[in-house]
């Protein structure tokens, strides 16, 4: 069934339509949650919280295409994750001094598979990971990140810089291992 039809029926409270939407989008949304929250069980719980809010707010939602729906649902999930991290006080603010911006080689990431990129991101500490996700993936600027996380812009920049340097290190290690493997 088409997504617009499903949305229309789900707005009217059809449980079958709601289940179809859930089945279609749950996997992607779980991966979004996993990018912010490392623990699988926590991520699943946040996914359910997010979908609960999504279905609750669906009658007021004006469907303007699949992309808009996806963006809205993703935003709900990210907010849930940020709330969870704030509650757990998972943000490790290392320093507020603006570190040098280390350019991450985009080509290096482009050469990696989606799973590898995901595994690299998940290995980052919570503070770095959150800022990196919001800036590099969601495309937010530092002002937006700062207001969203309740930190200064400088801290946001610093966290991103450290995240990038850590990713560089990890990529380097990965390359080394690839080299090692290839030589063996």
């Amino acid at each position, binding site marked *: 069934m088409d997504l617009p039809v499903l949305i229309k029926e789900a707005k009217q409270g059809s449980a079958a339509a709601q*289940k179809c939407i*859930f089945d279609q989008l749950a*996997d*992607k949304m779980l991966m979004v949650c996993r990018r912010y929250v490392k623990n699988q069980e926590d991520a*699943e719980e946040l996914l359910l919280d997010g979908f609960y809010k999504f279905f609750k707010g669906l009658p007021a939602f004006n469907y303007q295409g699949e992309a808009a729906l996806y963006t809205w649902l993703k935003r709900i999930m990210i907010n849930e994750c940020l709330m969870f991290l704030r509650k757990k006080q998972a943000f490790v603010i290392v320093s507020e001094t603006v570190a040098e911006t280390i350019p991450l080689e985009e080509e290096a990431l482009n050469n990696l598979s*989606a*799973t590898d990129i995901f*595994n690299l991101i*998940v290995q980052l500490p919570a503070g770095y990971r959150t800022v990196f996700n919001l800036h590099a993936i969601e495309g937010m600027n530092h002002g937006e990140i700062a207001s969203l996380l309740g930190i200064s812009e400088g801290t946001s920049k610093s966290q991103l810089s450290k995240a990038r340097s850590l990713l560089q290190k990890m990529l380097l290690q990965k390359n080394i291992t690839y080299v090692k493997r290839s030589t063996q």
Partner: protein
Amino acid sequence: MSNEAHNKDWVSRLDGLNHAAGEAGLDKNAAWDKLHTRMQRKQRKSKAGWYWAAAACVLAACLIPALLVHKQKYTGVHTSPAVTYHHSDTAAASVISKKEAPVNVVKEMHKPVAAQQEVAAILPALIHPVNPTNITAALKKDTLQITDTMLAAVPATAAPKKMRVVHINELGEATVNEVVYPEYKPFTIRVNSPAGLGDQTIANSTLNIHLSPKN
């Protein structure tokens, strides 16, 4: 939002990722059951809240008028007829009561209406005691006349009518009547002799001494 990050290929690939490698995927049916249960529970809770609110409103609508009526019933001031008792045990008192009307201080009291109505119903019976002859006459009218038995010859004695015992507590708090005689005060009359003989008390109201003066 800045768009600098969205031109990257790796971002779109990451967004399209459905599951992490080497990890068990999401059990959608179990997750959906959990979510659906939660949604229904919340709906039920909200419905129950409305039911409770409606019940509370109905209860309040019933209770408030009843309470107001009850309050009005028991706060209404009722003045019972004042009965003035005159002190007639002394001769002086009678004289004073004739000359000057005593100041009556009647305390108003709150008495339950139901109790007063009960008392009003009983009082005439107390004032006019029941005459046995009237009762026998009334019984004769009602009883069947049988002439051939001994019972008919003997007039039926009227069974003593049971009067309802009214306790003083049922009458409520008694009306307190106080008669104040402004000029009836304790006094002492003494006679002082000019010759320096002993003084003589000829009257004292508190000690109740009334003597005729001696020479």
